[in-house]
């Protein structure tokens, strides 16, 4: 039992990562890819260990921005989804505007943010929010409108207030779908932070990428990308873990 859980929760993922890294290695070796374009895993590791402290510090800055922005985006996304879900009129009016805003490439707005908010953390955090709130809205809305008719009727028959129905029935039922939104939003949040940091490379992995590409130091850029990937995986699994914790029943009633 526990052995098979270790197997599937630790060994298999690790194996997957190892296979992926090996493939990368083989690709660079077999096709003789110039390390300028794609450095080999060894180059990347070596480059990392040239300045591990610096890189981890920059990672930490990016992580903080991502976390703050993500938290705001999720809160905002949930609130907007709830507001849209509470009134069909508002939904009909606001959804096209949201879809429009979301289709605008945020990179194009980065200079504006810089002008308005200057340097520092805020424009990056705002970028994280802009990039990652929409999936939360869409998936939460889908979740909120998927309450089974009989549970909804139960709430009505108890004359539960809108808020009670929302908290005790609709939101809980929507949680598995909310988590889909969160899982999609996590990597977007990371990308948002990087966009903000590339536009104004003060700190963080985005500024490492900007700096290394200005120096055509591809290996360093790849180190930053790998660190971002690691952050992405960790955050993804944190979200997935939270889901397990909060929605254990969902697995039980489905197959």
């Amino acid at each position, binding site marked *: 039992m526990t052995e098979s859980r270790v197997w599937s929760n630790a060994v298999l993922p690790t194996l997957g990562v190892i296979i992926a890294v090996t493939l990368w290695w083989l690709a660079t070796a077999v096709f003789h890819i*110039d390390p*300028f*374009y794609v450095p080999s895993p060894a180059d990347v590791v070596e480059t990392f260990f040239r*300045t591990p402290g*610096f890189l981890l510090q920059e990672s930490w800055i990016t992580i903080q921005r991502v976390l703050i922005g993500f938290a705001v985006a999720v809160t905002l996304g949930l609130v907007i989804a709830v507001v849209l879900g509470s009134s069909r009129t508002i939904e009909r009016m606001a959804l096209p505007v949201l879809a429009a805003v979301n289709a605008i490439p945020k990179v194009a707005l980065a*200079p504006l943010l*810089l*002008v308005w908010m*200057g*340097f520092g953390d805020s424009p990056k955090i705002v970028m994280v929010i802009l990039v990652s709130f929409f999936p939360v809205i869409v998936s939460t809305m889908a979740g909120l409108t998927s309450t089974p008719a009989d549970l909804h009727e139960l709430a009505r028959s108890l004359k539960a207030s809108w808020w009670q129905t929302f908290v005790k029935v609709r939101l809980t039922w929507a949680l598995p779908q909310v988590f889909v939104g969160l899982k999609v939003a996590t990597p977007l949040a990371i990308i948002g932070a990087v966009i903000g940091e590339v*536009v*104004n*490379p*003060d700190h963080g992995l985005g*500024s*490492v990428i*900007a*700096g*290394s*590409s*200005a*120096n*055509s*130091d591809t290996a*360093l850029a790849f180190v930053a990308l790998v660190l971002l990937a690691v952050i992405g995986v960790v955050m993804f699994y944190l979200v997935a873990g939270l889901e397990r914790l909060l929605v254990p029943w969902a697995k039980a009633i489905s197959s």
Partner: protein
Amino acid sequence: SSSDDDKGTTGSAGGSGDLKKVTYVTAFGAVGRDAFAWVAKEKGFFKDAGIDVDIQKGAGNVQNLTLIKSGQAQFAALDFTGAEIQAGTGKFTNWRAVAAIHQQTLVSIMTTADTGITKPTDLAGKTVATATGSVSELLFPAYAKLAGLDPKTVKLTGAQSTALNGLMAQRKVDGLSTFLLSKKALETVSKKDVVVMPYSEFLSDLFGNAIIANENLISSDKDLVKKFTDAAMKGLQYSLDHPEEAAAILHKAEPTAAEPAAIGEINAMKPYVSSPNGAPLGHLDQERVARSIAILQGNGLMPAGLTPEKVVDFSFIPAS
């Protein structure tokens, strides 16, 4: 020079607690050509001048001009020719150059030796990649005409500047139009000899990078601008004199900046920094500025009407 006096006055007046805070934006990221700012900071030139400088890494002319315009930054380095065009077309007018970093434009055509291209006329019928909307792209027709090449016979392809060296190395294109300081990087990537054809051969009146300041700041605190410019120039001189140390300082402040590359760049830009007529560092010759404006206007890059005073505040220019 006069900076010694300044150091005395401000230093005694306020001490480190009273430093004036300003933001300076580099031309592009943290590379050798911009190292002097960090050097000036690290060496205490700015502090001695009573200024606390926040150095931000720039991302090209438009963004830097925007930051100056919006007041987020007080000083910036940028490509002066590009900035002239922006001013001439009326886009950004609230800035003045206060010192030149490069007396000659750094824009050039670069290609690898295996293409067989050795002179501008060889480019006829070839494809050249350049950053979209960059000065390189805008100046190309003027350069080509002067070099005896019909610009219409060359196919210019836009690409992000970070992709240029790769495109050349893979021979997706026959040449690049970009800053000549990236020669070393192209050599590394392509592992071939690199042929450089600087625009300055034919467009000798164009400047390279310059330091600009916000117009309002110039009128409200002339003294600050002066002190800043002087300190920056001190940093520039120091960098030229001690490329290794400058590169080390840069690397310490911005670990992504590779020291060898920075040293190479500082050495490579040396010839372009000193004024042709022996004027001090940072000099902006009014006549050359006027001629450069005339070239840009003559090539239809901007309408008539721009005068040197609208892009340079000559009161700061170290006299020749």
